[in-house]
């Protein structure tokens, strides 16, 4: 069975953008015809992976978005794509975007048996320490415990995503990353990588090397920049 990679994290941690970037990266390398990107974020239909469906299809990316059918894409209900269990029991490579709250925990509880059966998986906790409810160890621990207990799955890595979107600077990334590393040490979960927007990559590479990964934002509208 192919690999399953789950991205979870608090509301607004950047997990959806990071899952999209990861799926695109895998699409170029996977032995499977298409990498499946499952949008299981049921919390709120604003700025979700399914919004990128048209863009990915238009670019001919080797990604298939698994999300509620188009007619229900904006429906404000706990809405899982019906084929998710079938797909988890099929040989494929899958990336899962999962809400990091009690609703995400509920979804994880529902699918985790099938994920454990596949054995070959990673579950990442995405942290932006500049977000409310993610700025202290207690808050991050509360979140990771909630998901780990619900899913009976341990996080295999933390993804550090310190940013203030357009106002991010290299110094801010460094400061935020230090805090995330502090959380990771206390939680005894390794830091898988530090995600930064492409424009910061060159400057930070000498310090962080291969633990640095550059990402591109797909869901953030261009017009928000420069005010």
């Amino acid at each position, binding site marked *: 069975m192919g690999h399953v990679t789950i991205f979870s994290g608090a*509301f*607004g941690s950047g997990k959806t953008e990071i899952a999209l970037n990861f799926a695109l990266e895998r699409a170029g390398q996977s032995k499977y015809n298409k990498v499946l990107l499952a949008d299981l974020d049921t919390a*709120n*239909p*604003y*700025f979700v992976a399914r919004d990128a469906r048209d863009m990915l299809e238009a670019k001919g990316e080797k990604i298939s978005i698994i999300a509620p059918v188009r007619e229900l894409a*904006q429906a*404000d209900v706990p809405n899982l794509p019906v084929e998710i269990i079938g797909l988890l029991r099929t040989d494929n490579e899958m990336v899962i975007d999962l809400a990091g709250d009690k609703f995400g925990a509920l979804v994880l509880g529902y699918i985790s048996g099938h994920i454990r059966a596949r054995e070959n998986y990673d579950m990442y906790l995405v942290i*932006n320490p*500049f*977000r*409310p*409810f993610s*700025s202290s160890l207690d808050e991050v621990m509360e979140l990771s415990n909630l998901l780990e207990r619900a899913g009976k799955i341990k996080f295999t890595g933390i993804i550090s995503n310190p*940013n*203030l*979107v*357009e*106002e991010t600077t290299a110094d801010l990334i460094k400061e935020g990353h230090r805090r995330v590393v502090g959380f990771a040490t206390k939680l005894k979960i390794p830091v898988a990588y530090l995600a930064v927007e492409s424009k910061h990559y060159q400057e930070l590479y000498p310090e962080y090397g291969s633990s640095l990964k550059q990402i591109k934002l797909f869901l953030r*509208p*261009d*017009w*928000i920049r*420069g*005010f």
Partner: protein
Amino acid sequence: MERVLMKGNEALAEGAILAGCRGFFGYPITPSSEIAEYMARKMPKIGGVFVQAESELAAINMVYGGASTGARVMTASSSPGLSLKQEGISFIAEAELPCLIVNISRGGPGLGGIQPAQSDYFQATRGGGHGDYHTIVLAPSGSQEMMDFAMEAFELADKYRIPVMIMAEGTLGNIMEPIIMREPVSKFIEKPWATTGCKDRKPNIVNTLHLGNEELENRNHQLFNKYQIINENEKRADTFLVEDAELVVVAFGIMSRIVKKAVVEARKQGVKAGLVRPVTLWPFPDEHIRTAAKNARLFLSVEISMGQMIQDIQLALAGSVPVEFYGRIGFTPNPEEILQEILRLAEREGL
């Protein structure tokens, strides 16, 4: 200065807390639910009260009760929820109680959808419920203003003893932006009218029933004298490149930021465009509109609705300059789309 990355809804909730709000009563609804969620997490930790009411009606009447005691209290909802609250808002307006009412608006009519809209403009600015009344309506344009206006709203509410509404599109409630955390408010206006227990004084009575004919009319005159003062003192708008503008675009909320980009582009292409951004929707900044009309040949109202604010612009201009309309429903149009409309109108008018 502590900076954090906040959704508009979170920034608004934190702003209310910084303003001393210690009572939140609401019923969650997308795209406003993050406000209730934030309050549910924070209020119990700071000695505040969070109640998920059994309905929107219950929630607004809890605000009515809470505000009567002089406490800073609020509710938040989204369009269909605001419709349900209208009876209570009318009562609160008549009782002259300060409070904050938030509408993170979505498309209607009916259940509509959860996509962003500004089509509750009439409801917000014309009172909304029964009887002759107004609420002050503020329209923030970004996360920082969601926080700042929430704080400002409580000051205005206490100053004028009036419910203040913040209306923001679903997009603004949900988009994240970096903000600077403000200092908590420490000075509050005295409220000698509040029902705080009447030991050693006459009871304060909060009541909206006026059975006598003259009493009823007098009551309405009292309210309207107050509205007149607010009208004179509290109209607010931002203007951008309007001095020599031949085509003045009017837009509020997050829409105004998008239009600003389109105006900058239009200028680059030789069209003398400008922007008026109403900050208060009621009272409507009609003087800013008239000032901007000095060299204007055409106005354009851009709204996420079928055209509501356009009527206030027309009233302000009183026929002196024609007003065009461009609107979408459920979409936040991008600057390019607005630019094309500006260029189309400029070419048609020979600007």
